[in-house]
């Protein structure tokens, strides 16, 4: 139990550190470094506590149940391999934090740096310890995003932004492939548990989908580990601050791919396909990386390609899947992390103290910085594979496997040769790094006068170099026990004990090493000058740049091709889009019900009432009439639309839905008046639109008529078939039974809205408020069309006077109606919980009251008297509704839990007082606010056009005066 919690803490610690670091002030250099360093250090302590269990080959687990139905739990497991890797990540993390404290300049915002770094570490550890392959992918993608943020830390620089984006596109793209691979893998083995997947190797390899899974899986691993041809993002990522490079490209990010290869080797490996793709890609990357590294003039560029090359070596080993090769791969992961981190840090120190990273400018630094020089020399010797250093040991193991392991393929026979060839370059570039930076004449034209860095900036490098030496000289005392545990956790408990010795006798691997060493030295000294003068790549090959291909492809994929496709298939016209939508809807509906749509044998029907039939005869005629007249006779169409709406309203009342009838009625009134107000701003349509009677237009209308007929028939058929079948018992019964007991109201529909499903209603009034605000914002800058500015003829001259007289009686009535409307609204509101009504219909009723005043008087009159501040009403409405919901929390209930009781009010009698009532009050206020806001915004436009009219009139006399003067 304790171990379980320890593992969870281990994963959470870096994230906690990230949150803490993010809250620190911008210039809190020391505090941020301490927080980060301590949280990583605590992680190391936890690892130490767990070691005894790990040493006994146990797997420590920590599980938090999350979504058991989808077999997705927060499931962490730690075995020897994960332990070793986590230790590596944490310890290099601590060193990077110390180093970064001195590397970052005073002006860099530190909280961002450390919080990203910590979160990245957390994601990395989460990935390493995931016991569920889906969760592994989540952490995997998290590292992609965080590495993007880290690489782009100096986002002022174009190179940093480009590098970060490239890294993200390549690695996250691979992550998508990996996700698919993991899902398919889970389907094949029947679960997403890592242990289950690792146990089911035989099932997976025999499955027909194995090549697909393998391909996608390798795509994920190769992109992350910068394997050829996806290697190009890694040099681009060198625009990151050096601590980030030292971390990402030694122990963490790029090692994830090879971690995955080794981790899944028991499940996916061992086949010829695996060998060819993994080892094949590995050796290509090994060779190409080493060759290019020799030619790079940028210090970090050289190290980046060297990293690629070493990752290729590890990948090649993972592909061979002999026990020795896997152990060698794990060993080299550790060794490479140690010497590469120290080299990156050394490169950062050189950059920091001299102001340049150009190998051609740097020279003779040994005098100015002897200690850093000595450290870098030892580290690069480890990189070159010089005896008595850790790099030598794992490289010898690689050579031994290349020579000693056989599966009879041509690639296998070629391996020793390729290994030696690549090693020659590896020796040469290590030598170039040392010779050009530290030896030769002292450079005179450096941007800064070089000197040793602050001692604590060098401590991490010193520690790492010491580790190189310790492991290189005393392997059996340092890394050997852990390596055996890790090896057993991957390859099974019966792995024979492995001994790492410095001296194996004078054997083939040693001869290979000697050849590589000699040839490398010769190669460097023979070509040093020409390399300096030449381009940044091997002869001929430098012209082919993977990055160029990537950029070309990206441009095509994200810009040229989409635009071309859009030109070909896309349209900005609404009609074809809607038509397509309708057709797709029709086809989808047809596919869904095809063959299953039959009328029940004994259709259940209500007896036909002639009145109902006649009513719908009118309603249908109204609908068709509206459709027919909407183009040239908008007003008529609007009246007909209202007719159809009224019939709909009566239908609701007829079939036992009084609430719907009330709401439909009030909404109908508001909609019609709003549309009427809107008509004023549409163009006059007295003469025919040109081209309306052409054949093509007729054909278009006929085609749409066809679509409409099919759609209408389909919906009618569907409705009939369903309506005549018996009702399936559903949740509605539950609502009926519990409306009174649980919701304290007898009107079930209202109780559903304000109690059972109050959260939906809350969303709904929010939508209404958003619409109100949008309308307000849209109309604030509204300019009416030129033809709409003039006063309509009904408001001019005699007609206006006459109309004013006609309107006197109705206007007076309407004004008197206002208080009555308010009483109706209050009535609807208070009875809502028990009888038809409620906050919504009450709100709209108040709005109707105001609406009538707009019709009775003019806009100026009403705007001078209006007391409703719609935006405040809306805001308070939403707040009250939310507060009612939050109130439930105080009593320990979930959001929006209602409480109901009846209260005796003198004279009135028993009144239902539910908290739902307060919620309904919120609904009421929000609805009044939103509707009135709509109304004011639209009605106010007539004032605006009046202003415009005045402006026009002011201008015109001026113009005529000017003409006269001329």
């Amino acid at each position, binding site marked *: 139990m304790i171990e379980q919690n320890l593992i969870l803490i281990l994963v959470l610690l870096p994230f906690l550190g990230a949150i803490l670091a993010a809250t620190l002030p911008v210039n809190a250099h020391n505090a941020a470094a301490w927080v980060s360093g301590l949280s990583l250090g605590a992680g190391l302590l936890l690892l130490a506590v767990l070691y005894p269990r790990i040493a006994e080959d146990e797997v420590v687990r920590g599980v938090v149940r999350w979504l058991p139905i989808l077999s997705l739990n927060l499931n962490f497991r730690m075995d020897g391999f994960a332990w070793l890797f986590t230790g590596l990540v944490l310890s290099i993390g601590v060193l990077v934090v110390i180093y970064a404290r001195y590397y970052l300049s005073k002006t860099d915002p530190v909280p961002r740096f450390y919080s990203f770094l910590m979160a990245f570490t957390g994601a990395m550890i989460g990935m390493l310890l995931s016991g569920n392959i889906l969760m592994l992918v989540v952490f995997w993608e998290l590292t992609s995003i965080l590495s993007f943020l880290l690489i782009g830390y100096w986002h002022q620089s174009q190179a940093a932004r480009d590098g970060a984006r490239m890294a993200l596109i390549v690695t996250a793209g691979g992550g998508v492939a990996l996700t698919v691979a993991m899902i398919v893998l889970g389907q094949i083995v029947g679960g997403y548990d890592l242990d289950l997947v690792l146990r089911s190797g035989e099932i997976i390899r025999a499955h027909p989908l194995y090549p697909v899974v393998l391909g996608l899986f390798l795509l994920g691993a190769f992109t992350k580990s910068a394997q050829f041809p996806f290697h190009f993002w890694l040099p681009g990522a060198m625009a990151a601050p050096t601590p980030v490079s030292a971390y990402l490209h030694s122990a963490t990010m790029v090692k994830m791919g090879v971690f995955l290869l080794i981790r899944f080797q028991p499940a996916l490996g061992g086949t010829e396909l695996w060998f060819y793709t993994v080892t094949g890609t590995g050796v290509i990357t090994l060779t190409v990386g080493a060759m290019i590294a020799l030619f790079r003039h940028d210090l970090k560029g050289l190290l980046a390609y060297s990293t690629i090359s070493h990752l290729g070596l590890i990948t090649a080993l993972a592909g061979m899947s002999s026990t020795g090769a896997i152990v060698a791969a794990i060993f080299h992961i550790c060794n490479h992390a140690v010497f590469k981190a120290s080299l990156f840090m050394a490169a950062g120190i050189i950059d920091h103290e001299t102001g340049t990273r150009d190998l051609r400018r740097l020279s003779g630094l040994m005098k100015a910085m002897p200690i850093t020089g000595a450290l870098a020399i030892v580290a690069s010797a480890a990189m070159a594979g010089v005896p008595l250093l850790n790099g030598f040991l794992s490289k010898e193991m690689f050579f031994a496997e290349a020579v000693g392991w056989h599966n009879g393929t041509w690639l296998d026979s070629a391996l020793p040769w390729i290994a030696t060839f690549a090693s020659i370059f590896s020796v040469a570039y290590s030598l170039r790094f040392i010779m050009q930076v530290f030896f030769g004449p002292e450079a005179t034209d450096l941007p800064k006068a070089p000197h040793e860095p602050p001692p604590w900036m060098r401590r991490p490098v010193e520690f790492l170099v010491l580790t190189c030496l310790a492991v290189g000289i005393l392997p059996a005392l340092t890394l050997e026990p852990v390596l055996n545990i890790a090896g057993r956790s991957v390859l099974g408990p019966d792995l024979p004990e492995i001994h790492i010795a410095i001296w194996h006798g004078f054997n083939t691997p040693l001869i290979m090493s000697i050849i590589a060493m000699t040839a490398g030295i010769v190669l460097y000294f023979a070509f040093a000058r020409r390399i300096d003068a030449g381009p940044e790549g091997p002869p001929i090959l430098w012209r082919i740049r993977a990055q160029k291909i990537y950029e070309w492809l990206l441009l095509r994929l994200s810009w040229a091709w989409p635009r071309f496709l859009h030109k070909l298939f896309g349209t*900005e*016209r609404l009609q074809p889009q809607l038509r397509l939508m*309708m057709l797709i809807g029709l086809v989808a509906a047809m596919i869904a019900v095809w063959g299953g749509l039959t009328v029940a044998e004994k259709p*259940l029907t209500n007896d*036909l009432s002639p009145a109902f039939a006649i009513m*719908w005869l009118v309603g*249908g005629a109204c*609908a*068709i009439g509206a*459709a027919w007249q*909407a*183009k040239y006779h908008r007003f008529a*169409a*609007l009246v007909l*639309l209202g007719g*159809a*709406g009224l019939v709909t309203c009566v*239908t*609701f009342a*007829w*079939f*036992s*839905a009084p609430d*719907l009838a009330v*709401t*439909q009625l009030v909404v109908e009134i*508001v*909609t019609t008046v*709003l*549309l009427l107000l*809107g*008509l004023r701003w*549409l*163009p006059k349509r007295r003469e025919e639109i040109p081209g309306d009677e052409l054949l093509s237009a007729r054909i278009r209308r006929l085609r*749409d008529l066809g*679509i*409409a*007929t099919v759609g*209408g028939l389909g*919906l009618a058929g569907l409705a009939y078939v*369903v*309506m005549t079948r018996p009702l399936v018992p*559903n949740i*509605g019964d539950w*609502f*009926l039974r519990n409306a*009174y007991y649980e919701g304290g109201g*007898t*009107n*079930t*529909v209202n109780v*559903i809205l304000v109690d059972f499903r109050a959260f939906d209603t809350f969303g709904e009034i929010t939508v209404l408020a958003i*619409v109100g605000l949008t309308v307000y914002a*849209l109309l604030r800058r*509204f300019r009416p069309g030129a033809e*709409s500015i003039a006063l309509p003829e009904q408001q001019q001259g005699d007609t206006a006077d006459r109309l004013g007289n006609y309107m006197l009686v109705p206007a007076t009535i309407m004004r008197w109606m206002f208080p009555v409307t308010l009483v109706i609204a209050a009535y609807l509101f208070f009875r809502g919980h028990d009888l*038809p009504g409620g906050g919504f219909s009450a709100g709209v009723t108040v709005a109707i009251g105001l609406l009538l005043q707009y019709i009775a008087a003019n806009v100026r009159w009403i705007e001078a008297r209006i007391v409703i501040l719609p935006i405040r009403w809306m805001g308070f409405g939403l707040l009250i509704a939310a507060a009612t919901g939050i109130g439930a929390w105080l009593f320990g209930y979930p959001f929006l839990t209602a409480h109901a009781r009846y209260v005796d009010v003198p004279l009135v009698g028993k009144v239902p007082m539910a908290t739902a009532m307060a919620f309904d009050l919120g609904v009421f206020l929000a609805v009044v606010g*939103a509707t009135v806001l709509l109304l004011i*915004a*639209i009605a106010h436009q007539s004032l605006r056009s009046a202003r415009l009219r005045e402006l026009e009139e002011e201008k015109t006399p001026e113009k005529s005066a000017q003409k006269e003067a001329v």
Partner: protein
Amino acid sequence: MELVLSAAIGVLSGSGIWLILRPRTFQVITGLCLLSYAVNIFIFAMGRLTVGKPPIMPKGGFVNTANYADPLPQALVLTAIVISFATTALFLVVMIASKGLTGTDHVDGSEPTK
């Protein structure tokens, strides 16, 4: 009754679909209103048609659910009415603003060029 109502749904939705495929904004907004009537009645009808049994409960006692109309579609349609009101209002304003900006009431913001 069922036959009449399904025919009504058909007519309303047919007119609605035809209108939303038209080129003038007012036609589309009218079509949207008609279509929302059709869809609201359709959803409502999924609770089957019951006459004279509104879902208003007695205060306490045993509840025989067969004596009441299904409240669920009603609650859904109530929400749908509100939302269709909101969308109609929004559309109306976009329609007015688009006319003011482009000088035409064509849905594409410009008269067809032919």
